[in-house]
């Protein structure tokens, strides 16, 4: 027996494939675990997803230009550690007998500045020396992780205070603060990609870099801006993680780059660039988050969780390839 779908149903299925996958996933987990569809778990999942949404939004911008950023996990760790270190210890200058203390605002600004600077450096290296993004950001992955270890001495920085922790653990109008932060970032990113010149340039570069160059787009400036934004958004993720744990962990963010790439790919953004959307990535991040949560609730071994996630990413890329061929 063969299932016959109406001719016009295929584009519809393709358009909503992420949402359909999410619905099937939620249905399956809710049938297997009575803890999944509860209010507490709902907010827990959203809070966990928030960090990946921030990072993945930046990653989407990078991937849309046909690039990749493998350093986001390490940048996240360094930004969080810089913010925590300055907030907790400030800067002590023994010579002039001066102590420079940092407020929560100062720590946040320093963390964001760190992420932006590292991202900008990625973009500068990639455009100035024509390095493949894979190689340049792989180097930054190691550099930023090493700097994090140097800054923290390999130990967590804890005791950051209630005001800072509010960023990761607080509630505003009945919704967790990290959800507000990630929601705001998504809204701004949708605005930038759909309604601004920068957004059009990002898609143009990913579609055809040479055509964009011939059209007068300043490729280097756009790419550098995109990588700086990715760094800044990784830093936001770092601040949220640090605030949530009340602790900057030197090994924070390990393998986050893979989760964010997975969210981007599952959300339908082409790794070849030029095709995809921020909202698709949000769907991808939700799928990854729900999958993580479901596997934990179903008491699946962490080792098997990695295997399952790997296959889901593989499946998403295969579907993406197949769609691209059919298009």
């Amino acid at each position, binding site marked *: 027996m063969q299932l016959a779908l109406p001719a016009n149903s295929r584009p519809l299925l393709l358009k909503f494939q992420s949402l359909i996958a999410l619905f099937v996933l939620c249905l399956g987990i809710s049938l297997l675990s009575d803890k999944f569809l509860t209010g507490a778990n709902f907010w827990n999942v959203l809070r966990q997803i928030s960090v990946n949404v921030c990072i993945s939004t930046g990653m989407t911008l990078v991937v849309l230009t046909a690039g990749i950023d493998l350093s986001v996990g390490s940048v996240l760790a360094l930004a969080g550690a810089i913010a925590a270190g300055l907030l907790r210890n400030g800067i*002590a200058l023994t010579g002039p007998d001066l102590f420079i203390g*940092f407020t929560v605002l100062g720590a946040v600004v320093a963390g964001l500045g760190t992420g932006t600077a590292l991202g900008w450096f990625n973009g500068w290296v990639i455009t100035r020396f024509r390095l493949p993004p894979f190689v340049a950001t792989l180097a930054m992955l190691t550099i930023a992780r090493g700097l994090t270890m140097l800054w923290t001495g390999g130990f967590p920085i804890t005791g950051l205070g209630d005001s800072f922790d509010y960023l990761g653990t607080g509630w505003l109008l009945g919704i967790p603060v990290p959800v507000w932060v990630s929601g705001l970032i998504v809204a701004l990113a949708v605005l930038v990609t759909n309604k601004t010149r920068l957004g059009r340039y990002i898609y143009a570069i990913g579609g055809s870099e040479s055509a964009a160059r011939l059209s007068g787009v300043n490729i280097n400036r756009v790419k550098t801006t995109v990588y700086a934004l990715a760094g800044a958004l990784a830093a936001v993720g770092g601040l949220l993680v640090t605030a949530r744990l009340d602790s900057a962990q030197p090994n924070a963010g390990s393998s986050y780059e893979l989760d964010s790439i997975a969210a981007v790919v599952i959300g339908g953004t082409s790794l070849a660039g030029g095709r995809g959307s921020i909202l698709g990535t949000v769907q991808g991040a939700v799928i990854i988050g729900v999958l993580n949560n479901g596997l934990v609730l179903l008491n699946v071994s962490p080792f098997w969780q990695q295997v399952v996630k790997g296959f889901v990413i593989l499946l998403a890329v295969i579907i993406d390839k197949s769609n691209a061929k059919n298009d």
Partner: protein
Amino acid sequence: MKKTLQYVVLAAVLVLVAFKSVYFEKLSTHKAATGPDAAGKFDAASYAQRFWTEKLLPATAQAPDLSALLTELKANPQAAFAQSHALGIGNIRYFLVRGAGTVAKVDKNDVTVRLADGNDVQLATEYVFGNAARDASGLIRNQDFDNTADLNALAEQLNGLIRARVVPGLRADARPGSAVQFAGALELNQAHLHLDKLEVMPLAVTFSPTVKP
């Protein structure tokens, strides 16, 4: 003109952010207010001393016998783990235990004691780390501490007391064949329970000419 105005506004915002971001004070004043001797600061060393003397050592008198605990762990692990404690979530749990036996072997890193029922247990003498001494009694509560750094400092101070007060005597007096009574903290993984090599952080050790049953 419009561009100039933009720059002026941007500069004003930057100055305001900078003004609200940092503050300055004399380093000597700051150290006096926040250093280890500042009033109100958690003093892990003093807390550990008091906890050791007033709570932890008295609690060992009520600790379960290690041989009986091992029997129960083999027969009914779930019931046995009801006697364990831990401050963190997860499968790592700690037991406060006491036991008696004969010194079977003295190594660089530990002293092996053969219990009356034939089980071997190692009393650590070299690698005294972790949270066992802090968590095993269940008398330390998360909510009594402002932050995890203080909890970590307490664990380190208690381990320091073990190194300073228990280990030297244990190393000096342990001879193969001598009878020993001990109290200590035992760490076990609830999900991956291995009872073939047990290591106890020693809290109190006494040697006697004969093994008491």
